[in-house]
């Protein structure tokens, strides 16, 4: 029988399926970052003066800031911000201004992302599935089902279009949850953000289908600066999903996104992410630096749920947070973070309780294999006015092999004596006993690891929408290929 030491490496080494490059003509702005570049990006996108002022203000703040170094990330390389191309877009053919470029179509087909509506319209799929906004490098190339959604008054489009068509909404909500000077990367994003999704659900509307954004980095030497804004007006509800991939390269590429979610009174937002950026090769070369700020604001009685499956990126620095401002608002954070080879993840959440009787729940499952480091970092803060508020947090770590690290850094701050905070964390590993038990019953070692990991992460995977859950399960199994121990 193969012993555990042999099986783990076998399970954790695998090919990154999405690592191909699309050969397409693209236009770039010159390398580097200065006021001129920001003006160029803004004029390329035909933006109004107020947005340009917003960017320039962000840029002047960013220049005074220093990159944060408190993360447990020993492999975070020094990023040369002058060595990045801040805008890259596929060239539009003048004879096909409306349609999507066939090469792009093919790219997204290959990734399994339905950027066309034909399948559904032809009745191939039994039910309407998902409306997709596909972002390729710095621009959104296609948004599907816009008409169907518009009938209900739902606005779902790329951020740039929203700026053109709904400037009043964008102006009202932009940077209302993540202020421009919130942190180093949020300020950078505010200065140079290119495209992302914009979504507005009007009062009382239940969104009839899942909304989804798909982010693809293609061009070399570029960074992607996604900006997403989701507004759920009073009593509305929506389920939103986000996915991402990038080609395999020996260089590190920067992805610094800002996602803002406003959940008005009694509204309900579910935000799911399956993050599968290129994680670098087995020697730790290349991979995406995923440095992201995501935050939601809950008004009275509102509900926001974050579900994330993090399997990619060389470096992940990400803390989806909720400000529970309104009385009786609730939030959940469910996360599975898997790191393998030389990946490092420092991820978790912040739950800021301000309103009365606010509730939050945190379930975080970390899985480390290879030489990776996986940290949970979280904050639960009960403000002075958080009467009767409650939080429960649970953070588990699973270690596969003896060369990886698993860490937990929670912070609990309690200013209110009627609130209650509970936190617990454990670590475990896949034991030889468990593997033996499976082997004995005819389950091969790699399947056994997949089985155990999926069982371990089940509580979180169950929270994902159907389409994502299947993908996530596969991802977990594939990403562990070659790592059993």
């Amino acid at each position, binding site marked *: 029988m193969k012993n555990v030491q042999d099986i783990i490496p076998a399970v954790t080494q695998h090919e990154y399926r999405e690592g191909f490059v699309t050969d397409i003509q693209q236009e770039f702005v010159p390398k580097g970052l200065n006021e001129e570049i920001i003006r160029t990006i803004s004029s390329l996108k035909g933006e109004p003066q107020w947005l340009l002022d917003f960017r320039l203000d962000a840029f002047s703040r960013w220049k005074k800031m220093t990159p944060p170094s408190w993360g447990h990330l020993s492999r975070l390389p020094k990023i040369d911000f002058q060595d990045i191309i801040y805008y890259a877009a596929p060239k539009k053919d003048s004879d096909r201004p409306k349609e999507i470029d066939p090469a792009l179509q093919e790219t997204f087909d290959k990734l399994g992302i339905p950027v066309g509506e034909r399948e559904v319209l032809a009745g191939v799929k039994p039910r309407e599935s998902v409306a997709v906004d596909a972002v390729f490098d710095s621009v959104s190339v296609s948004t599907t089902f816009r008409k169907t959604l518009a009938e209900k008054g739902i606005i779902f489009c790329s951020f740039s279009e929203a700026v053109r068509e709904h400037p009043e909404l964008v102006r009202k909500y932009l940077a209302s949850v993540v202020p421009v000077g919130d942190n180093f990367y949020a300020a950078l994003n505010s200065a140079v953000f290119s495209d992302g999704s914009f979504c507005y659900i009007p009062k009382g509307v239940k969104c009839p289908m899942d909304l989804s954004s798909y982010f693809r980095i293609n061009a070399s030497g570029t960074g992607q600066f996604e900006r997403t804004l989701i507004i759920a007006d009073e009593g509305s509800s929506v389920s939103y999903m986000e996915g991402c991939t990038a080609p395999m390269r020996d260089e590190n590429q920067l992805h610094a996104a800002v996602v803002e979610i406003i959940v008005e009174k009694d509204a309900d937002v579910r935000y799911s992410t399956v993050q599968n950026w290129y994680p670098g090769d087995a020697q730790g070369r290349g991979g995406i630096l995923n440095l992201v700020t995501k935050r939601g604001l809950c008004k009275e009685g509102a509900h926001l749920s974050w579900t994330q499956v993090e399997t990619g990126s060389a470096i992940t620095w990400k803390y989806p947070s909720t400000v529970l401002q309104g009385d009786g608002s609730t939030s959940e954070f469910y996360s599975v973070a898997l790191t393998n080879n030389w990946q490092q993840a420092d991820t978790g959440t912040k739950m800021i309780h301000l309103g009365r009787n606010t509730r939050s729940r945190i379930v975080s499952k970390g899985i480390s294999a290879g030489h990776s480091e996986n940290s949970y970092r979280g904050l639960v803060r009960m403000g002075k006015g958080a009467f009767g508020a409650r939080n429960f947090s649970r953070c588990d770590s699973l270690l596969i092999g003896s060369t990886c690290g698993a*860490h937990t850094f929670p912070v609990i*701050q*309690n200013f209110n*004596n*009627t609130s209650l*905070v509970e*936190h617990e964390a454990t670590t475990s*590993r896949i034991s030889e006993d468990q593997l033996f038990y499976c082997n004995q019953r005819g389950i091969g070692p790699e399947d056994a690891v997949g089985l155990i990991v999926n069982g371990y992460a089940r509580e979180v995977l169950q929270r994902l929408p159907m389409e994502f859950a299947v993908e996530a399960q596969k991802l977990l199994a594939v990403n562990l290929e070659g790592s059993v121990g």
Partner: protein
Amino acid sequence: MDRVYRVGIDEVPKRLTLKEAEELRLVFVVMPGISADVPFDISIEREGVKLEIYGLYLCPRSEQVNFRVRVRHLVGGSTSTQLFKGIAGGSARVGFDGLIYIAPDAQKTKAFQENHTLLLSDSALIDSRPQLEIYADDVECSHGATTGSLNPEELFYMRSRGIPEELARRIQIHSFISPVLKYLPEEYRRQILARL
């Protein structure tokens, strides 16, 4: 062996290294009225060590107490248990910053850490940071932290059986701190109970 330190009164070591396989119990107690910053760093360099650390901090008025405990398992095969219990009333500020570090290859380590704090007034503040930093896979490790106030249902239970509210609260607080209190010498215990 038991060692009891009254913070602010006895001399408290900042750093300790355990090089022998021994059983050691350390108890820290912070009496009411004392403000202190307590850094404590202990390294386990020998297998077979059984370490227990208990902490009790009573801060009913405007004390500021901050524990910064580091337990480092540099070799495997040892066990450490930590239990810190605190009470914050008045405008007290209490902090617990505890880290369990398990070095690469410190296999078969068992390390546990718990921090529970009672918040008795609306202007007191608790800051709790129980942390784990683990570099070995064959270990058993957990931590837990809670903050909250006295359970109103327990209070109601006692009052409905004729126990006056004042006494019922004292009983609740007594039972909350008793897991640590029991490791204190009789004399200290009496002093604490008299001041509840």
